[in-house]
């Protein structure tokens, strides 16, 4: 009996000691209210799931319980920034910053600063040093890992970036942004199925947000699942009607399918909303690219002219001008414009970066190839396209298809249908619903005498063109090819 009592008392004493030394539950940020911290954690999780409204509500309740809760203020600042409330974001960030000095330890202060510096560009020394410090102290801290993954993504270190996101998911399987980024990373390396898998999980975790559907729609469109992509874009717009990325993507999707009028209508409908922003310029660049892709050269020339007028200081303005002059048969002026553009581009401070150099070199190869094509020098065009392909080897397939197609066209024009056929097949392996490559396949097949393959290609392109505008040049090409493979009626 006595021994049992002694055992009980000793056990209680040990527990008391353990509680004394262990302290309370581990918290990343200081707050005087346990409930406020729980709300903060919930809000952070909701942010990761892109449930920003709910996150904002949770964090505001946390702040109401503890107005001195710096981390909660920092997250509110992030949410306001994401919604474009710059002033509100700055206000909350300033509160958080002022409260940071009162935080008890360096690690917590560092993590708070990371929250405040989350949207800084890569190369920010303060943010990067904070990141290294926090991860050295707490290697599994999700906030720091997310920030690090973001930096790696922005600096093009995609393999490392992927590993960090996988690490994040191993810690928190419901970390929605990680799925988003893993989806884009998979698409970037050409694994579109994996990308869709990641993005479907992303969309599952945040079904009420536009971004997951938009991301999924993008990847689906890249792999030719146009109907699914359209459904996702519409779902995104349903979730968030003013989500311009989805409107642009939806318009681009229509243009991609040759539904020029419908695409233009959507893009033009948001122009007012985007007026003066970077997104408006990107919208015009998309239009020019689409016109050019579909051989709507008149529309392309008009758009280029308008672009140069509208954005006189835009980086691509000189390039468009060179193209425009070349298409207008004003070759010397085109060369001069091109020389001026590339001289200016190469004089930029960014030219020290390889990605930038590759981009400039690629543009030069594209321009030379275009000019050579117009000059009828298909061999040179082929070489230039090849140089372009070589310099863009790190780009995903959905961004390189156009170069392959143009090179294939040059092959065909130079009387080498075999390589043209191969190029068409490589493009269609990624996206079997692209109109121009399908027509190139049919043409090349006919040229090699494989009427069967040509017929199959034309059978695939037929429903695509059925949805496309009637004025699309591809319609005529299709009809010509049909005529070629269809035996003439006997007189």
């Amino acid at each position: 009996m006595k021994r049992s009592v002694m055992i009980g008392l000793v056990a209680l004493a040990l527990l008391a000691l353990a509680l004394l030394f262990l302290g309370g539950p581990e918290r990343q940020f200081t707050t005087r209210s346990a409930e406020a911290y729980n709300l903060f954690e919930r809000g952070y999780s909701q942010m990761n799931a892109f449930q920003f409204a709910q996150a904002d509500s949770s964090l505001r309740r946390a702040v109401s319980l503890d107005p001195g809760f710096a981390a909660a203020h920092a997250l509110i600042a992030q949410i306001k920034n994401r919604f474009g409330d710059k002033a509100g974001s700055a206000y909350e960030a300033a509160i958080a910053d002022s409260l940071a000095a009162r935080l008890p330890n360096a690690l917590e202060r560092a993590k708070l600063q990371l929250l405040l510096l989350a949207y800084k560009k890569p190369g920010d020394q303060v943010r990067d040093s904070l990141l290294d410090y926090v991860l050295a102290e707490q290697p599994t801290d999700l906030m720091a890992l997310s920030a690090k993954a973001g930096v790696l993504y922005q600096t093009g270190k995609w393999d490392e970036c992927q590993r960090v996101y996988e690490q994040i998911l191993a810690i928190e399987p419901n970390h929605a942004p990680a799925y988003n980024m893993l989806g884009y990373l998979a698409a970037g390396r050409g694994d579109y199925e994996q990308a869709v898998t990641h993005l479907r999980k992303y969309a599952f975790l945040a079904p009420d947000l536009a971004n997951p559907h938009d991301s999924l729609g993008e990847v689906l469109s890249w792999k030719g699942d146009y109907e699914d992509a359209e459904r996702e874009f519409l779902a995104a717009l349903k979730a968030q009607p003013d989500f311009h990325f989805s409107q642009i993507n939806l318009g681009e999707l229509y243009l991609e399918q040759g539904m020029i009028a419908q695409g233009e209508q959507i893009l033009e409908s948001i122009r007012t909303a985007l007026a003066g922003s970077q997104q408006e310029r990107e919208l015009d660049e998309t239009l020019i690219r689409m016109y050019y892709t579909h051989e709507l050269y008149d529309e392309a020339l008009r758009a280029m002219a308008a672009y140069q007028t509208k954005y006189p200081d835009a980086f691509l303005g000189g390039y468009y001008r060179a193209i425009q002059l070349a298409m207008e048969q004003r070759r010397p002026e085109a060369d001069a414009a091109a020389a001026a553009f590339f001289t200016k581009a190469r004089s930029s401070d960014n030219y020290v970066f390889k990605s930038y150099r590759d981009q400039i070199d690629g543009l030069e190869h594209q321009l030379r190839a275009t000019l050579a094509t117009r000059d009828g020098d298909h061999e040179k065009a082929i070489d230039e396209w090849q140089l372009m392909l070589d310099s863009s080897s790190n780009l995903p397939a959905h961004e390189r298809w156009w170069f392959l197609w143009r090179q294939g066209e040059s092959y065909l024009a130079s009387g080498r249908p075999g390589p043209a056929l191969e190029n068409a097949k490589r493009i269609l392996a990624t996206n079997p619903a692209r109109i121009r490559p399908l027509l190139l396949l049919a043409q090349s097949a006919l040229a090699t005498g494989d009427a069967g393959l040509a017929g199959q290609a034309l059978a695939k392109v037929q429903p695509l063109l059925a949805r496309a505008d009637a004025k699309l040049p591809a319609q005529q090409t299709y009809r010509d090819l049909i005529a070629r493979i269809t035996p003439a009626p006997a007189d």
Partner: protein
Amino acid sequence: MATEESSFQFPATPRSGAVGHWANLLAAFATLGLCLFSALDAGKIRPNDGTVWLLGRSTVTVLEAPPRADGGINLLQPGDEIIGIGTTMIASPQEAAQLLSRQQVGSLVPYLVMRDGKVLRVPVRLSAFRTADRFYPYYGFLSLAYWLIGLMIYLRGRESQAARLFFRMCLLFAVFFMTDLNRSSYFWGDIITRNAGALARFLLPALFLHFFLVFPDKKIVVTRRPWLEPLLYVLPLVFYLQFTMDQFFGSHAPRIYNTRWLVLGTFFSAGAVALLHSYYQFRDPLQRRRIRILTVGTLAGILPFLIFTVLPGDRVGDTLAFIGTVPMIAVPLSFSYCIARYRVMQIEVLLKRSLVYSLLTGSLFLFYLAFVLGLGALLLRLSGQTSQVATVAATLAAAASLWPARVHLQGQLDRRFFRSRGNLAGALQEFGLEIPQIIQQDALITRIGGRLCQLVDLPHLAVYRPAPAGEEWLLAGVVGHPAAAGPHAGPDGCDECPGELRLEATALRLAQFNEPYWIERSQTRLDVRAAATREQAELLQRLQERDELARLGIALLVPMLVRGRLVGLFALPPKHGSDDYQLQDLELLTLVAGQMALQLENSRLYEEELKKQKLEEQLTLARSIQSRLLPERLPSVGGLELAACNFNSAEVSGDYYDLIERDDGQLVVIISDVSGKGIPASLLASSLQASLRAHCAISDSPGEILDRVNRYLYASTDPTHFATLFLAFVDPARQQLRYSSGGHNAPILRRADGSLHQLDKGGLPLGAFDFGSYPEETIGFTPGDMLFLYTDGLTETVDADDEEFGTERVERLLGEYHGLGAAELLDLVNAELRAFRGREQADDDVTLLVLKALHTAAGNPAGALAYAQRGLPPLTRAENES
């Protein structure tokens, strides 16, 4: 399938030890917890997507998508891997179960599934689901019944292997009824209940068979091949391992296949056959009757269960399975009845009290559990800890701090319900110290019996011992509890105990089984003439004796055995009120009875030793008296050669001789044999000698002297004490001899010419009667004549063939060796006697006296001395003292 000798007990095996006991109790309460958990789980309405998937894997794969109970279409397909529910990814079935449990019944929940390598978002309408069907309450009742009867039997008879097996079987039955393997659930606990249920289903048939291989008798096949017992469990364990493996690696929901059901059904069938075999194996109708209800109940429960539930396996429907399970209640009921009615398994327990005790113990445990959890939660709340480690630590600390209180309360409960249990150890120690200190039987019965009455709360306790002769059992003592003595109780606590009992057949059984014997009046009148065999005759006689004992108010007999010999028994009345003897009572009574038996036996041996010592003392005294009766030296009488000797047997008899010299020169010769042995005979001889010497001094008529001595002896002694005596007056001068005999062996006169004459004139032995006369005879003798006097110890000595030495042999010796002197003749006769007897120790005293007439007037200076100097056996006093 032969059985061992039936004893109607579970064969006791060595105590499994405290650890085993606590492990069994833990198993019992774990089973109860599991059953309660299953019941709560089964009764809980939960959202369900209508699919079956496994909980034991890292991924959640849909194994089956049976038609939904609500008629809806299940969009999930077998093979789908569920990777998200609601808006949350899942990494394990446990997470999935938790997520699903948070959903609302009837809601449309998005599922993220991987199908054919593609991720799909599937909306699933959740339906209400409860694993318990409409028969579940009955299963719960059945489970509780099995649990209670199993625990009761274990608590009351845990010493026996069969009781432990029965206990485990009941636990498995309880789990069996409360769990269901084929239900779909998303609750994590299902992995526990499902596996526990599978384990119960696989082990139960083997345990069922195992139990009926050791109950009611341990089959010889198991006794001779003990390895068969563990072997029974091999196949079920293999099945269970396969079942478990299916959970982790199988492609479908694990289930018990039909072949396995068939094998398990065979185990059940074999168990039923073993029970039937035991039943028909009993030749004793009483024993058979005792397990009749049990056999019928078990078979009535098991056979429908086997036919409708086990053998059809998975194909059986709920209703059919229920029909097969309903009669299973007969098993615990029949066991309960047989225990209460016949004390099968030697478990004599009041159900009511055990039930109350079990309920109180269970309630105490539940209260303890609630307090532990409450205190643990309080500690956590106060400390602000939320980690699992802190939770476990707080719970353990709370459990440890409350444990002493629980132990204390449980001790109070035990003392209240099982008073003797608490006292048993101490009492046994006390008895062990006290009993050896008490030698007297009465004291032993009074003190130890009184203490037993207090401990066991007996009205009284009677001790019977076998009669020295005959088959009756005599009341050796009775003692009663002072507080229990009723108005009719005598000073000893009971005046109703019969003085003797007739227990022929019952005593045989008590000696054979060495176990307490319950006295119950038989319900049926058995005809003794119906007994066809010796066993049946014994049984019937025992039943008759039992009825008589019951009529006398005896409820229990406890044997007192020493080395297999029944030396006594306790006869005990019914206990007070509705109380009944408990196992602890029986243990205590049996142990104390054994100790008392041993002590009584020791006491008997001690008394015998005392008697022996007393006898030895008597012998020594008698020898001393007798030696004083004999003359120290033979007188020297002229013209006569005298020799005499007296050989003692183991017991001193009343032989003596005397030679008295009278003043007138006559020699009085006396030889006598007093009846009886030891001191009484010696004293009588002494009295006889004194009387004779007195009368011989005043009278010279042998007849007159004998007549007077006869009257004197008759008046002063018991008629059973008498003496034979030969008295002669020898006148050497006149060479005459006058004699008379009081019933003594006739001395032999051998004349010098070799003729033999018996001197047989006389009357009755002295002291036997107050009448009679002693005529005299006077004869003359010449030199060379020899008178040979002896006691019957000589002629009645027998050899190894039980042939007497006889008078003829004496006469032959006297005839053949007529030339010998008196001493040589005695020497010769002694040698002949010893040779004839063939052993050293004589059966009776032998006294010889020889007178030989000499030619000269000078007498033999000292016959005894001369005899001794020849190195022959010493005579007279020297001989006696040896």
